[in-house]
């Protein structure tokens, strides 16, 4: 049973991992994108729209296309969200907090609108869309995982998106700490005036980091629908995972590699109430609080410690304009 618990924790953690990796890359450029919950939501509905249209217009699903179309739609939708955010905050220098919160409201709204429309198009009795066929392709895992006992269950039973999340986090970590691009990106988030004077194109880095971050975060939404929810989209089903992803950024002290462990921990805390016997509803809600409590405690601890390398990028949330005096 504990192997199953860990497996479920990982599955619960993967959307958070996508979200936090995306947000870390974004924040390293100095953009505090509070639109991540909305972007993840849009990434999810984007995949749903793609899959729905493909399932409706073909009789026999091609396995490659069944995965590729939703993936592409999800990426495009998140990218558009990222571009809107960048245009507002980087080009027009709008307030990042306000823009981010607006993006979340907008993203959830647009997701629910299309979710509702698709339900109507499908003529379904229940307020949800069922994409089991597409989902089964997404959930394809290694065939021999079942035979390897707990090891296979924990480590090998996942779908390709889960492994992609972990690889993305590792690659992001490597790029941030071990490459010239990463150095330049971190400098943009710490001190854009310095980066600018060093000949780094601040706007380009902010745009690229934020858009790539949005795409990665959007994949978290896609994973949630196609893998975790078995291809069933229902409005507002995504819950508060977007905010949890942002909390995870702080918990991982802006390091994607720590985010991998953090996401599993958060995932575990998120579902632990299911594994505690004789829990009533209010008790369950208390347990669901745990990831947030952990984040707050962690914030308290890191703030007391005052370690310089556990702090957010110094210019996080601030606009940059070269000729500002």
């Amino acid at each position: 049973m504990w192997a199953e618990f860990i497996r479920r924790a990982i599955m619960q953690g993967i959307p958070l991992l996508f979200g936090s990796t995306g947000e870390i890359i974004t924040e390293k450029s100095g953009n505090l994108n509070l639109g991540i919950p909305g972007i993840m939501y849009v990434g999810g509905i984007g995949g749903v729209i793609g899959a729905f249209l493909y399932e409706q217009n073909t009789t026999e699903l091609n396995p490659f296309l069944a995965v590729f179309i939703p993936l592409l739609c999800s990426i495009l939708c998140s990218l558009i969200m990222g571009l809107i955010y960048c245009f507002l905050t980087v080009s027009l220098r709008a307030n990042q907090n306000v823009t981010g919160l607006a993006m979340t409201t907008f993203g959830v709204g647009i997701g629910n609108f299309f979710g509702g429309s698709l339900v109507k198009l499908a003529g379904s009795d229940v307020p949800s869309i069922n994409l089991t066929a597409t989902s089964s392709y997404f959930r394809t895992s290694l065939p021999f995982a079942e035979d390897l006992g707990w090891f296979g269950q924990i480590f090998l039973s996942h779908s390709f998106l889960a492994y992609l999340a972990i690889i993305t986090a590792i690659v992001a970590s490597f790029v941030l700490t071990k490459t010239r691009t990463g150095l330049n990106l971190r400098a943009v988030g710490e001190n854009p005036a310095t980066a600018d004077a060093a000949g780094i194109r601040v706007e380009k880095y902010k745009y690229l980091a934020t858009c790539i971050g949005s795409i990665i975060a959007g994949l978290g939404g896609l994973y949630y629908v196609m893998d975790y929810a078995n291809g069933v989209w229902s409005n507002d089903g995504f819950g508060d995972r977007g905010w949890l992803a942002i909390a995870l950024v702080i918990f991982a002290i802006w390091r994607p590699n720590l985010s991998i462990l953090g996401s599993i921990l958060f995932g575990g805390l998120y579902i632990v109430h299911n594994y505690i016997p004789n829990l009533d509803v209010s008790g369950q809600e208390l347990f669901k609080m745990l990831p947030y409590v952990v984040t707050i405690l962690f914030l308290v601890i890191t703030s007391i410690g005052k370690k310089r390398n556990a702090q957010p990028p110094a210019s996080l949330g601030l606009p940059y304009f070269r000729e500002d005096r």
Partner: protein
Amino acid sequence: MQASQNNEVYAIRLEGISKRFGNKIANDNVDLNVKHGQILAILGENGSGKTTLMNVIAGIYFPDHGKIFVDGKEVVMKSPKEAIKYGIGMIHQHFKLVDVFSAAENIMLGLEEKEKYSIKRCEKRVSEIANQYGFEIDPSRKIYEMSVSEKQTVEIIKVLYRNANILILDEPTAVLAPQETEKLFDVLRKMRDDGKAIIIITHKLHEVLSLSDQVAVLCKGKYIGTVNTAETNEAKLTEMMVGKKVTLNIDRPEPINRKPRLELSHVSCVNREGTKILNDVSFTAYSGEILGIAGIAGSGQRELLESIAGLQKPEGEILYIDPETGKTEDLRSKTPMQIREKGISLSFIPEDRLGMGLVGNMDIVDNVMLRSYRKGRPFLLDRNNPKKLAEKIIEDLEVVTPGVSTPIRSLSGGNVQKVLVGREIASAPTVLMSAYPVRGLDINSSYMIYHLLNKQKENGCAVIYVGEDLDVLLALADRILVICAGSVSGIFDARTTTKEEIGLKMIQNKHQRGSDANG
């Protein structure tokens, strides 16, 4: 074209550069030449457009008009990156360094090398450059652990690492102790002999005379002229700079009715990191005199003033002696509000003008009101009296501003300081503390501040003046207290002491300070 006619190629040649910000003309038709193997000093009052001009050369600002020639060829630089390509490197007044990066990481920033990214190789080259010019630096140390002069070293190496042949330094000595300045000048001379062209901005005339080959003077954005340093002197330069002759002598009236006003005994103070910033400081400040405080930046001057003003929690005793009743009051661990409620008029002009002194986004009236908002009707604010006071400050201190309702942030540094000083002396203080009140101010504004401090002194106020220019301290103060690593290393009569004596006391405990900082 002209370069070839003169048969010599200038490293940098500017022709008719103009740059404006909104309605404000920062540079108006400026010409400038500098050759390789030459140090050019740029001199000018505050707001004369020196920094703007340098930013134009460094590609940070794009000029509205004019041409830039590098090594005889006309260039168009749209970004700092292109300036770097032409071998132009700028060391900014406010360092452009990322605090959480190491020196080597900062130096590598933005580089586009063909070779593989390697911090190790960068660190090795940094050490090579450091050895060549006689710097001391640990390339793997983080910037936030470094002192100001170390940070400056990183900035200079960063520029050299990019093979810059033209170096621009914006007020590099403003933050350095005299000994550190000398060291920097030695390095700059070595670079000049290496064939590099160096442009240096400074306010300090003696530095201009001791270092540069030529001096270019700007005044109110206009180019006045260039002279050979060997053929000029302080008086001539000052005349070019301000347009009219300014007496270089600062008045120093004799103290009258000198009585103890503030007695500090055994004051110690610990900062947030737990390092001892003030160590057993004892002295007395008298009414009717200016007590100068000299010391290397960061020796505890700030904490000393803040302790008196009620912004720190020091140990020891800070006694205030009331001029009328003679009653004493311990100011220690009282808040500024409690001190004011005791009827003690304490004025504090902090070094961080826009951070601690004034609110940048508020206008002059609102800033003046910060001192008096508790007066007036119980619920609504009284804006009339502060407005009158603001108008009086603008008139008396010649503040250049479009009006009383202009946000402070959009005024130039000198005018911001005038507003702050004007507000503080308006409350008729009995103790006036000022930290670097003329930092970044031009000569005219500086003299106005000196004059205002002298006036307070004549009014029987105990004036404490923390300064960095020893010449000014020696000419303005009655006594000079030298602080070194948080301890008082000596108190001197400013009329009889020498610059050397004070300079020596400033670094007396320097070795000990270094080990404290590391521990």
